[in-house]
């Protein structure tokens, strides 16, 4: 079994300041972890993924995340927020059974608000 906890339902930051979106996971397996972003009235876009290679993962639009097994965390960061980053962010875990077909388990999402 696996689960994902996104610790903040809303995060508000000023434009140009750092972003931190927190995620903890629980998995009976060695999981793969993802962050997806959903802009208003849009689909889910993959930001980045961790699949047991480097623990610091770089994604699109300047985002990165660090896998910390000891803390079972996969927090998403960005050094400087931009207005276009305002969206819903989902931390996601996969069973990583080695192929495809595994259903993803989503966190409840964190709504990122960027203040001008």
């Amino acid at each position, binding site marked *: 079994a696996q689960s994902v906890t996104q610790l903040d339902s809303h995060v508000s930051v000023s434009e140009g300041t750092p972003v931190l979106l927190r995620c903890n996971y629980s998995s009976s397996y060695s999981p793969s972890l993802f962050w997806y972003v959903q802009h208003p009235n849009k689909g889910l876009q993959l930001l980045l993924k961790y699949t047991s290679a480097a623990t610091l993962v770089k994604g699109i639009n300047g985002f990165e995340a660090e896998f910390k097994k000891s803390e079972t965390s996969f927090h998403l960061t960005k050094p400087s927020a931009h207005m276009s980053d305002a969206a819903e962010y*989902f931390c996601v875990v996969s069973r990583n059974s080695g192929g*495809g*077909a595994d259903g993803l388990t*989503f966190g*409840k999402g964190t709504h990122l608000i960027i203040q001008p």
Partner: protein
Amino acid sequence: EPEVTQTPSHQVTQMGQEVILRCVPISNHLYFYWYRQILGQKVEFLVSFYNNEISEKSEIFDDQFSVERPDGSNFTLKIRSTKLEDSAMYFCASSYQETQYFGPGTRLLVL
């Protein structure tokens, strides 16, 4: 860049009616999925499909639901007799291996 497409973008139906949601996955992908997101709730896995059969399904995916890949490009989700609680955004996804790419979704409203 190839992407997953879904039709229709919005569908309104009466309770008890059948609906078919359509998806065109990315062309060289092997695995196909359906998820739903009820308004204000988290995205939930429904079913995965590989090699023309269901690989995995959640407890949500009961006998009212079915999936099909009728030809080489489409992947469909059928709800036989819709209920009010089926109102949600339905996302299709596809993958070549593990990383899943999502379509824009179909918003289903059951009245």
